[in-house]
């Protein structure tokens, strides 16, 4: 039991829960409000790396580092959002993708701060419960993700949620009814992006060692694929999609399917991407609103 609680399973569960959190935040940004954030990993990575820098390089206490990193991500999102959010979707897509690339590049090149490709570590757990640390950390991530999902479900039938949906559906019409859509988009983008940063800080403790490779666009694509697969407009779309992708591959298959060690590292990632892509194509062709479908 103790072995299970400290082993790969718990690490894997923690990652899955973090990705469910990210996908649900993307649901809020894109599914509800229509903001095309293609820089998920930028905000996630900014939170993760700035947390690591605060904690390790500057020896700032754990919780304060976490809050600082989350806040910093929010401020960057606010600045970026101010410039781009009133542009059309394509421009927002490119700009967010660009900021994610900038974050990845900075993590690689600013060696004095991030130690570059050598990596930044070790990020400890915030508490030491011996063999139960990993499990306790999983529970912490789980609680946060559940809170985000609950928020999303409550938002759906709240005046604020209705306002965000009206922005997605017809922003000029919402404006003509007196809604200051630009400001609302900006604040919501900054808040949800900073929460992506918060999940980044959580992930940092889970992986213990930060390397720039983790900040590649693959994270963004995975979260997008999960959300589209699950259903972008559905509250549980991110959850279902993440379980069907990362949950299935990084946990179920890696744990229960006997794969020869040689194929494990070489072949599996390729096959995984191949199947993600195929699944995405099939969903877009035959069930464009995702596994969960349209709301009735």
């Amino acid at each position, binding site marked *: 039991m103790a072995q299970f609680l400290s082993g790969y399973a718990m690490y894997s569960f923690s990652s899955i829960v973090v990705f469910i959190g990210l996908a649900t935040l993307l649901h809020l940004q894109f599914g509800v409000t229509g903001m095309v954030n293609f820089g998920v990993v930028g905000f996630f990575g900014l939170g993760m790396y700035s947390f690591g820098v605060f904690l390790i390089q500057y020896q700032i206490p754990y919780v304060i580092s976490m809050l600082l990193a989350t806040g910093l991500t929010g401020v960057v999102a606010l600045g970026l959002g101010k410039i781009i959010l009133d542009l059309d979707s394509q421009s927002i897509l490119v700009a967010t993708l660009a900021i994610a690339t900038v974050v990845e590049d900075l993590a690689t090149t600013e060696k004095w701060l991030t130690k570059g490709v050598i990596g930044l570590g070790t990020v400890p757990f915030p508490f030491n419960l011996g063999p139960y640390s990993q499990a306790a950390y999983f529970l912490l991530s789980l609680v946060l993700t559940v809170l985000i999902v609950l928020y999303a479900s*409550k938002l759906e039938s709240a005046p604020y949620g209705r306002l965000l949906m009206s922005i997605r559906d*017809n922003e000029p019409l919402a404006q*003509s009814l*007196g809604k200051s859509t630009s400001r609302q988009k900006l604040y919501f983008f900054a808040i949800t992006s900073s929460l992506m940063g918060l999940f980044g800080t959580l992930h940092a403790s889970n992986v213990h060692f930060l390397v720039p490779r983790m900040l590649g666009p693959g994270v963004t694509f995975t979260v997008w694929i999960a959300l589209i697969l699950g259903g972008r407009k559905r509250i549980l779309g991110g959850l279902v999609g993440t379980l069907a992708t990362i949950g299935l591959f990084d946990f179920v298959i890696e744990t229960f399917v006997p794969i020869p060690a040689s194929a494990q590292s070489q072949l599996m990632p390729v096959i995984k991407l191949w199947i993600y892509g195929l699944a995405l194509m099939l969903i877009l062709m035959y069930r464009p609103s995702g596994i969960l479908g349209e709301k009735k």
Partner: protein
Amino acid sequence: MAEKKLHIRNVAKSFSGRTVVDVADLTLGTHGIEGLIGPNGAGKTTLMNLIIHRLKMDHGQVIYFPNGKELDISNKRTDEIARLGIVKTNQVIQDFESLSIRDSLLLSLSTTKYEQFYKIFSENKLRKEAKGEIDTYLDYFRFENPGGHALSAGEKKLLDIIRCLVLKPKYLLMDEPTAGLSEEQTVKVIELMKRKTEEEDMSILVVEHDLDLIWNVSELVYFMAEGEILLQGTPEEIRKDRTVAVKYMGVSHV
């Protein structure tokens, strides 16, 4: 005669060199309902869009007089202007695809008091507060499925008008409000326009090609052609005018 609501000074707008609106001096809203007529391409919709700043004017000034105060709204955003009390119904159908009729009206009635990201438990309060008003409108205009979405083009058009009315505007711009409505709904809209302007502090500027409607509801009519306001007068005066006959009715009103 009521106090004037708007004063438009020297407002011009051109699209790629062609002047679409060029209004030197125009006072609006001294009557309950005023009509704005003119041939297609005269600049009627553009003028309305300039007032609510949906379009940016090349130069000029729009002065608004809410409750006797004087306020330059030339540089305000559409949403600010709406909150100040000037809104416009749309000629082309505009709707929120995922909002039901009631949701759409709740959106319109909701204010920033409710629309904060942390206020996710305020739905019941808003619904309770808005119920009476929404039900009044839904009872008045019989929607086919009042619990669901607006179905036909006509219903969407009605919903667009109601969304504006629940905002209790001081000045309402209506761009061809009855185009596409049934006879019965048209009568209801007209009756509502008259009642609202009589009972409340609301003035309406209506653009219509249905001239019978214009003659019937308007106390004052403006005639617009080639971007300029050429004439203004009572419906009788405008009706009898030569210029109007030649430029407008002579062509389209056989």
